[in-house]
């Protein structure tokens, strides 16, 4: 699936450029995007070292376990496949909390660490488990309490009420998250039905 999307994005772009005379822009975009991707990764190195290092301390001291135990009733129904005292729980929670408070650069390392734990739980297979897809769905829906970047841009443009969108945004992001969880569950049921049929 990802292979098809990747190739289609390229080919449509190249063909479109051929017919619309935007080949110059395309050439420029290829190298700019590649450089930009590397810049992102370089930027990620510092936050990954810092947050994964710090989270390792929290894991070893038992703080993550405590967090996982505290929020267990809330998170169990969303991730029913994860054993209750598995370290993945702690990382998933840290990821969600960091997202909630808009600490984007802390959320990514924790989410990746959670993914790693989930992959091990899945026997190291290179296709995603049910929990991995759920975690991804939660992250793509971008559950945030305060959209700081948007507020900043509204301030720059001299809004009379830059923060008036906080409430509506929260409502919208809750809808997206809920939708993501429901759609994720529906796809899971569909997969299970298919497996049963194949048996």
């Amino acid at each position, binding site marked *: 699936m990802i292979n098809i999307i990747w190739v289609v994005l390229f080919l449509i772009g190249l063909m479109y450029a051929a017919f619309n005379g935007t080949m110059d822009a395309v050439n420029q975009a290829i190298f700019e995007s590649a450089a930009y991707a590397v810049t992102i*990764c370089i930027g*990620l*190195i510092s936050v990954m*070292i*810092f947050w994964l290092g710090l989270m390792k301390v929290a894991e070893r*001291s038992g703080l993550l376990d405590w967090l996982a135990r505290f929020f267990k009733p809330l998170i169990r129904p969303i991730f029913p496949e994860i054993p209750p005292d598995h370290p993945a729980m702690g990382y998933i929670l840290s990821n969600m909390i960091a997202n909630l408070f808009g600490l984007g650069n802390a959320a990514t390392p924790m989410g*990746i660490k959670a993914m790693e734990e989930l992959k091990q739980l899945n026997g190291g297979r*290179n296709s995603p488990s049910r929990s991995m897809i759920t975690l991804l769905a939660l992250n793509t829906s971008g559950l945030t309490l305060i959209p700081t*970047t948007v507020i900043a841009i509204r301030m720059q443009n001299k*809004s009379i009420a830059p923060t008036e969108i906080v409430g509506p945004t929260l409502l919208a992001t809750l809808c997206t998250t809920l939708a993501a969880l429901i759609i994720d569950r529906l796809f899971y049921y569909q997969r299970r039905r298919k497996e049963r049929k194949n048996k």
Partner: protein
Amino acid sequence: MTAMTTLSVWMVPILIAIILLHASYKKIPSYEIFVAGGKEGIKLAVSIMPFLVGMLTAIGVFRASGAMDGLANLLRPLLSFVGMPPEVVPLAILRPISGNGALGLMSELIKTYGPDSYIGRLASVMQGSTDTTFYVVTVYFGAVGIRRIGDALKVGLLADAVGVCCAVAIVTMIFGK
């Protein structure tokens, strides 16, 4: 607003203090564990690089060629039909594909129509209500070496579609047109 900014300024320091105090209380060698954990971070960040370069160049080509705008024009009648203002259609389509692209587009919309206009508010809510699905899938699955993405992208994109519709409905309901 000041309370919110103060909160976000204090969040990280307080978090660090809690983790380190708890570790000291449990008498574990914090610094050594930090360094050991950090080493994993380097490996992970570098391993994402090829995934991100591949995906971002494909998206870059798709946008720069004008195909992106073509797609927006194609979908405009359909999305207008369900009540979305034509001005924000490109943003709705770009949002799950490119985070920076969407941010740029949102700034433009806010600048053109004013932050307190219907379009300006709608653009703000749409930008804030979801994350860049393609980026999240690429980075999270890339880092741990997941080759087959399963239903993940479909789930993300469908949720984005629901989110966009919700954003239009909520903004219209709360602020009016």
